[in-house]
Every structure is written in C-alpha cells, then in structure tokens.
C-alpha cells in the first residue's frame, strides 16, 4: 500500500516534467494494441537467475562436446581458452582468488568459472547471441548441452551432471558472492 502510494506520487511528479499536462496524465491515450500470447511467447527469451524463462529439455557435458566442436571452437579455441577474436570462457584461479583489480592485463582472464555470477546467464546469452556467424540458430537442447559443457570445463559441475530448468538455477557460481551494487552516487568521493 505504501509502495503504491509512492509510485503514484512519482507518476504525478513526472506528469509535471514530461509533455503530458496534468489533466491528461490520469487518462490513457489508447495507442498501441493488445499483445497476443503468441506474440509474447515468440519474443520472451529472457532467463532470470531463479530459472524463470528456461524451456523444457536437458543435457549433459557429453552432449555439449560435439556442439562446441562444431559451432564454437573456431572463435573460442579448442578448450574455451579464447582467441584474438573471442574471449576466454574456461579457467579457474587457484582458491578462487579474485585478482582482477590488480591489473588491467587481467581483463582477458575473466572466465565463466572465475567471474560469471549466475549460471542462468550462460543459457540466456548463448541462446540469444551465439554463434556469432549464425546468431539465434541453436536449439534449446544445444544450448542446454553447451551450458553443461561450459560448466563442466570450468570445474563447476560434474561431467555427468544433467542441466535443465530445475538444476541450472541451483548451480552455485564461484564468484557469486563477489558482486555488489553500485554505491558511487551515495557520495561525492571517488569510488
């Protein structure tokens, strides 16, 4: 209730600063048309850390190895070590140290295993943008398979781990606890 009141106040404040005068702000314009369920389904590809959006299906690292070899190796290297045209994907730093602030030269060593905070991001990104020469061409099964292979190569899951909509959000990423929200604007000091 309190929250709704705050939002309403924000809306009213905003009515003063954008082009809609106050007598219009409370009404709707009626522009646009209702989205159908099919239209939403066709575009709704986002995956959330709790697994919301993950499709049916499952795969293991063994399923992913041939997919990686066929569709990823040209840019990311035989074992995910990266090439001049695509970043390194695989690698852990001993004891999961987090040395990246020590040198700009370490930027290229940020891998899924030592930097990515959420396993669901792998599925989301690979499905929406990879491979670069045929973006959006992978089946959900291929994406699950590559996700499993990448997690296994980074020593995060076992070779026979089944990755699906239930297990993927439960994967604990080594760097998860490192991530904090930006606090620069709370101060005029350099942060």
């Amino acid at each position, binding site marked *: 209730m309190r*929250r709704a009141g705050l*939002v*309403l106040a*924000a*809306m009213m404040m905003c009515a003063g*600063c*954008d*082009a*809609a005068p106050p007598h*219009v702000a409370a009404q*709707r*314009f009626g*522009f*646009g*048309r*209702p*989205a159908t369920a099919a*239209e*939403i389904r066709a*575009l*709704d590809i*986002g*995956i*959330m*850390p709790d697994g919301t959006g993950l499709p049916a299906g499952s795969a293991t690292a063994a399923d992913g190895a041939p997919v990686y070899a066929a569709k990823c190796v040209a840019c990311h290297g035989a074992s995910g070590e990266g090439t001049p045209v695509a970043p390194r994907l695989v690698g852990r730093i001993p004891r999961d140290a*987090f*040395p990246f*602030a*020590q*040198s*700009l*030269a370490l*930027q290229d060593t*940020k891998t*899924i295993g030592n*930097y*990515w*905070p*959420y396993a669901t*991001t792998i599925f*989301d*990104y690979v499905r*929406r*943008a990879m491979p*670069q020469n045929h*973006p*959006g061409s992978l089946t959900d099964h291929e994406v699950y398979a590559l996700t499993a292979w990448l997690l296994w190569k980074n020593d995060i899951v076992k070779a026979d781990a089944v990755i699906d909509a239930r297990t993927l959000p439960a994967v604990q990423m080594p*760097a998860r606890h*490192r*991530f*904090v*929200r*930006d*606090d*620069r*604007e709370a101060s*005029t*000091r*350099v*942060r």
Partner: protein
Amino acid sequence: MTTSLSRRSLLGRLLAGATGALATMAFGRHDMPLQGAMPAVPPDPTKVPGGPTSVLGARSAFESPERILFATASKTPLQDLHGTVTPSDLHYERHHGGVPGIDPERYTLLVHGMVERPTVFTLADLKRFPAVTRTHFLECSGNFTPNAPENITPQELCGMTSQTEWTGVPLATLFREIGADPAATWFLAEGEDAAVLARSIPVSKAWDDAMIAYAQNGEALRPCNGYPARLLLPGWEGNTNVKWLRRIELASEPFMTREETSKYTEALKNGTARQFSFVIDARSIITNPCYPERVQPGWIEFRGLAWSGRGRIATVDVSVDEGATWQRATLETPVQTKAHTRFRYLWRWDGREATVLSRATDETGYVQPTVRELVEARGPGAGPYHLNPITGWRLKPDGRVLFRTEPWA
C-alpha cells in the same frame, strides 16, 4: 525544365563527389602533410556564377571530419567539432552484433511482464504520444585509453562520447499507458540486433527521465544509433541505452544478462565486483588545442567539453602549471543537465613549456579525479569501465602540442 534542373543537380553532385574524394585523400590522416591535391575553386568566386541548389547539403569539400573505426566501435572527432551538438553522422558507435536493417513499417515494440495491459506499439504509435525533446550526452563507459602515448588525439583517447538533441516519448508515459505494476522494480530492455542485446534497468529511471527516442538532431535516428527507436537513459552508460528497442519486460528482479555481469562491471581492490554501475561520473577534456595541432606564443583560447551523468556541470577549472594552481573556465550557457557543456579558458602563452589540465565539478559536488585518485580508490585493474581522470596537454617551445602521458599504475 524539370529535367534540365535535375541534370544540373546531378552534375553538381558528381562534381561535389569528385572533389570530396580528393579532399578525403588530402585530409585522410592527421599525420599526413596537408599539401597536395585541394578542391578546385575559382580564383575569385564573385566573378563566376555559383553552384546549384541541392537536395542534400554536403559538407564543404575542404572539411572532412570523420569517425575512426574499430572492429565494433567508431569514435567521434571531438577535436574537429564546435559547440556541444555532435553531427548525427559523427556520433560514436558501439555495437555488439553489427547494425541491423529494420523496416520502420514492420517495426514493433512489445511491452509486457508485470503490466496490466501487455501492448504492441508501432513506430507510428510511439510518435502519437506527447513528445519531448532534450539534449543529452551519450557515452560508452569504456571510454578511456590508459597509458596513452603523447601522440594521441581527443578522438582516439575518449571519442566514444557524443551529444544529441533527442526527441521521443517519455518512458513514464508508456508505463502509465500499459499500467505498470507498482511491484515491478526492474525492466529488461532488449534490442533487435544480432546480439539481441539486453540490459536490466531500474523502473525508477523510467519515472525519472528515460525516454524512447526516435529522432536525433531533428530527423530520424541514424541506423547505427538505433533506428527506428532506442532507449535513452540520460546520464547512464551507453550500453544501457539499448538501440533498436524491440521489447521491454517489467519484472521484480534484474535478469542478470551477460552485459551486466561478465561485462560492464568493475572488479575493485576490496575483492568485490561493482554491478549496475549506471551513472557516468563527471569528466572534462580540453579538445583544442590538442595533438597534432601547433600553437604560437600569444593568446590561446583553450576549449573543451565537460559533462556529468549526475546532473549539470557546476564549474570547470583549468591549470596551466600541471595542477599547482587552478583558474575558473567560462561555461557556455545554457548549461544543461546530463549534457556536454562547452568551456573556454583564455590564456597568454609566453612560449615556454607548459602543461594544461582541465577538471570538472558537477552540481552534486563530485570533482573529476586524477589517475592516482582513481587507482587508489579502485585498484589499478578496475577497468576498463568508468575511467574519467583529469587529462591535459603539454605545449612545447617549438609549438607542438602533446598529450600529457601518465602511467596508469
């Protein structure tokens, strides 16, 4: 009659094209001598009839400002520009999947998720809403070159900032229209490019000053800047200003996309990684004189740009003794919020070596830091994002202007 006019117009364009090509050859690189082929002009333009009208006004054949190209980016020639607005064809680019081709007649924006009425808007729908026009800078947060050499231009150093007069519909208007759920705190903004680039944005920014822009400096967006419609989040890092916007999904949590986790985060010396670091901190740079210009003793007007994602620029100070003392520069008015602000400082140079710096302070009191202050606060590897250090130029006794080099760490 019409035919003959068209022919003249065509002839004029062919001539302009030919001279333009020559000019490009002559001015193509800053380290090439300027002698050589120049556009042909009459010895006295008052004694011959001038050229015809044209359907598009081309630049003078003597002027050839250009972006410099990288694999997934291009940079604005800051040193070639005046005032504060970036000509649309010189706005910087940063793409993650190339520039998509989008038919405006088929373009749609889907808004769904935690809303009362999931809605599809056409471009025409977006243009029917009450519009706003605002001038803001847009800057890639990875816009600094650590350990830059002395022979670097402002364009090469930090040319991924540009300024535009944007026109569009406030996102707040759209969110009221579709009935945004008060419990929605984040929204996903997604592009229609090959990367289907996606970022999670706090809903509070929509109620503040976010807009969906469809026009840039008085005309439709350029394809490389998001045609036909893009998200504009004044003062926030370029990557969040999703181009070719096709979908907005309201939610109660961020989606944790690749761009907001593995990229566009800063590993800090305390062992954390800073995430959702949206705002661009205050910054300035002297754009003229700069490398590779030559200067002469006497009056020099130092000109530059200052900007802050937190609000208006309050002051810009200039030092001609490498930071020992600072003097107040003049700000060109109106000073707009979250906007490139032109500053000027007039100084009489005696011809002895001097190092000139600029330092911006914004209306919140935030002061542009030195390299050392940045490195001390974050650690030497806390990049490449949000690096906004004080920079400057050395005036050499022989008139050369060289970038003031400074080891990053």
